[in-house]
């Protein structure tokens, strides 16, 4: 009986240590993996907009996506897909930074000054916040916010 107790205690101790190690190890490798996957999806999104590929865009956007335009409007997924020509995504993003929270990833970026695809009107640089979650093994954009950089 004593031997069983000792063996069980050792097993618990090992389980605890091993769980702790695997959580830490997995945390680091999972973060790196998620960052890589989400950056790829961001590139796919940019490409889809440039090519007016509504099918790809539809696949990458969550059905309940929260889309905040730089003029302070919330658009539904259907409105975003219908408005793909507006130029919301047209400027190249730079200095992307990612924050990972398990299966949720937030991407912060800034666009250069550019021009709208449709109107050719010049637009100031923008701050972009994109939020992705993994749904059924697939990264989906659940929120997008963009704001023109200006002086108060």
């Amino acid at each position, binding site marked *: 009986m004593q031997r069983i107790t000792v063996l069980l205690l050792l097993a618990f101790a090992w389980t605890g240590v091993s*769980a702790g190690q695997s959580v830490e190890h997995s945390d680091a490798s999972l973060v790196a993996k998620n960052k890589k996957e989400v950056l790829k999806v961001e590139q796919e999104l940019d490409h889809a907009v440039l090519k007016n590929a509504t099918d790809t865009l539809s696949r990458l956007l969550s059905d*309940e996506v929260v889309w905040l335009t730089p003029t*302070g409007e919330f658009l539904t997924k259907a409105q975003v897909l219908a408005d793909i020509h507006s130029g919301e995504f047209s400027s190249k993003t730079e200095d992307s930074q990612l924050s990972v929270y*398990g299966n*949720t990833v937030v991407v912060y970026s800034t666009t250069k000054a550019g021009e709208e695809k449709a109107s050719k009107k010049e637009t100031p640089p923008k*701050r972009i*916040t994109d939020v992705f979650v993994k749904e059924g093994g697939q990264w989906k954009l659940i929120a997008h916010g963009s*704001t*023109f*950089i200006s002086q108060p």
Partner: protein
Amino acid sequence: MVRRFFLVSLLILASTWTFAGLRYGQSDANSPEEIKNEVVKVEDQRIQAHQSHDKEAMQRIYADDLVWTFPTGERFNKAQFMDIILNGKLKPYVMSHGEQKPVTTIKQEDRQFYVFGNTVIVTRLASMTELFNGKPLPHPRRFFNVYVKQGGQWQLVTHHSAPVGKQ
């Protein structure tokens, strides 16, 4: 006796793995409605914390890597944003008889919640006027807040705001 000992052992093991699962952000919650109610509570606490300059509550509610985007496109981290709030650099006000008066109640205009498992997005319209370091910020504005459940606690990870109709 031996059987009881094994049962207790199995329970401990199960709780260990449940805890490990929570660390990964797996859902320990319930229906979308229950999740929404949890986030409503935290969002209300956050607003209260701003108004009462409650540093402890803000430390708890804001994720360490919080990013706060103003309607001017300026971005702030947790320390910078808490400094703004705690030192009164951001002041909501109303005009009354030609004078600026501080806002005592923040209206929750057009507030919506979107639940994606352990991630919740809150959207809102803010029509109040605000001074930042003495200068007016663009208004009205719309914004979203993103909450993520980490270690059993809802935390605000990002806020993004854009002025209505401005370019």
